């Protein structure tokens, strides 16, 4: 799904943010990207979002070389990549509903379609009662859930999260991580950048460690820990269930942009939605 070959990124000030980076993330994989501040985690995500262009090397997303992607095609690539930020990046003047709806508005969907999809997703994220609230009126955890909803509402093939728990207290951080794991279980390729090693170790997913712009360790996914949310009584419980997305046609599946961006929707996305609805657990471990 994501391949980097000898990628180098040097900023205008001469800083080498990424040095000869080669890595591969398979479709549907859940990956932690970790390392100290300035290691190049954010730069890597920015390159994948084409917010920056690599100085050298090749980046393939869904088989498409984004090194040669025209500027005009960038928006269509981004529609297949959801992104979550530490500072949420919500539009303060727009309601919760409108903040999430924007991902569908840009694709020219009708109001009814948009309302149906946004409301069901926000319901699933326990935000159904805050549709008209402004982001400023929400708690940090709620804001991040809105940001996640915005990133997921058009069912992207890839979800990138840059320090998604950085502004949240540990409990809320855990809550958000559960959500991202849920997304991963639905077949979406997820990359979570975080410098929180405790968080990374707790889940035992594949972990890429960066230092000074280089990949210094690629630790494969460990056997799931006891009590891990993917195990035992919590398995199958999903925050995202009940959003009814299986009944909604993904515009990316039918539109030419899906092909243009070279990435399709996750194959498990509809299968998972058929699971019974479950209430989110406040403490999974």
């Amino acid at each position, binding site marked *: 799904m994501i391949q980097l070959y000898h990628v180098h990124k040097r900023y205008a000030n001469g800083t080498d943010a990424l040095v000869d980076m080669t890595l591969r993330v398979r479709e549907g994989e859940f990956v932690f990207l970790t390392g100290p501040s300035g290691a190049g985690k954010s730069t890597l995500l920015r390159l994948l979002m084409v917010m920056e262009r690599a100085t050298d090397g090749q980046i393939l997303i869904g088989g498409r070389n984004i090194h040669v992607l025209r500027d005009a095609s960038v*928006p269509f690539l981004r529609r297949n990549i959801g992104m979550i930020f530490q500072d949420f*990046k919500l539009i303060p003047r*727009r309601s919760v509903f409108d903040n999430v709806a*924007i991902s569908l*508005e*840009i*694709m020219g969907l009708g109001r009814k379609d948009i309302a149906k999809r946004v409301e069901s997703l926000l319901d699933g994220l326990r935000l159904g009662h805050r549709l008209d609230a402004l982001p400023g009126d929400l708690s940090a955890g709620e804001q991040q859930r809105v940001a996640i909803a915005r990133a997921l509402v058009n069912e992207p093939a890839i979800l990138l999260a840059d320090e998604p728990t950085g502004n949240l207290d540990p409990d809320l951080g855990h809550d958000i991580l559960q959500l991202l794991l849920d997304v991963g279980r639905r077949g979406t390729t997820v990359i979570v950048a975080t410098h929180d090693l405790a968080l990374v170790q707790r889940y035992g997913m594949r972990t890429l460690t960066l230092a000074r712009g280089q990949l210094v360790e690629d630790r494969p996914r460990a056997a799931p820990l006891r009590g891990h949310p993917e195990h035992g009584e919590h398995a199958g419980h999903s925050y995202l269930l009940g959003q009814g997305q299986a009944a909604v046609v993904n*515009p990316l599946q*039918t539109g030419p942009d899906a092909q243009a961006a070279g990435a399709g929707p996750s194959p498990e996305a509809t299968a998972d939605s058929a699971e019974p609805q479950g209430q989110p657990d406040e403490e999974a471990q």
Partner: protein
Amino acid sequence: MKRGANPSYVLRQALLLLRGSPWLATVSALTIALALTLVGLFATVMFNAAHLMQDLGQSLALSVYLQETAGEADVAAVRAKLEAHEGIKKVKVLSREQDRERNKRLLSAELLQGLDEAAIPGQPVLEVEIDAALASRGDVDALVKWTQALKGVASVEDVEFGAEKLRLLFALVEILRTIGIVLSAVLLASAMFFVFSTIRLAVFSRRDEIEILALVGATPGFIRLPFLVEGALQGLVGAALAAGLLGLLHIELRGLVRDVYMLNVAWSLLPPGMIAWLVVGGPAVGLAASALSVGRYLKL
């Protein structure tokens, strides 16, 4: 999927943008209204002035007085010269005797009493009718110059041209036209400047929003459209205000103008042509200004 932005979304966002800086938007709309009103007003005045000039041009007359001593050959020569000019429609010749008769009619009887018939002045006169179309085209200046040159001909004593006064009127209209154009241009430019500034402010205050939209995959067109529509809306509001203003002016001026004989013609400050100009011109001015602002400040 290259479906365009939802019109209702674009309009909603444009209205939100307007609400973001209501005072500046109001000033922009007012300036556009003022500029459009002035341009419309001047266009109407100039249009009516052209008609008036044509009417006046029809009564244009040129009289060429020859020397008393001028003979038949001189008369014929000057006549040929006049008739050769494209702006001259008809030349009528008054003989020395006919001119004397006319003068006799013009002078009072007491003055003529005991006067020798021969002492009454009389000279061959050529009365020239000028093509009205030529006059209204503003070629009067050239004609005046040409007739003045006639004075240089030996047999010509004097040239009297009724257009001298008309020329003044033409000059006056010309000055008015220039003032109108300059004033309209200045007002239109300031209207555009206000719209430009409103849009710039809107772009600056929404930097974060623009960045977010780009990140979720909005095309540059989708991001820019509400800003462009905001400018066009300011122009539309300005046009509506201008229409109202012109309508009021029309009602106020109608009574006043009816009493003036010269202008007692069918006229309106708000004919269909004017409404069409406002409907197109207002949004076009707003759109042009916002396009300039967006092009300059909304870099993606």
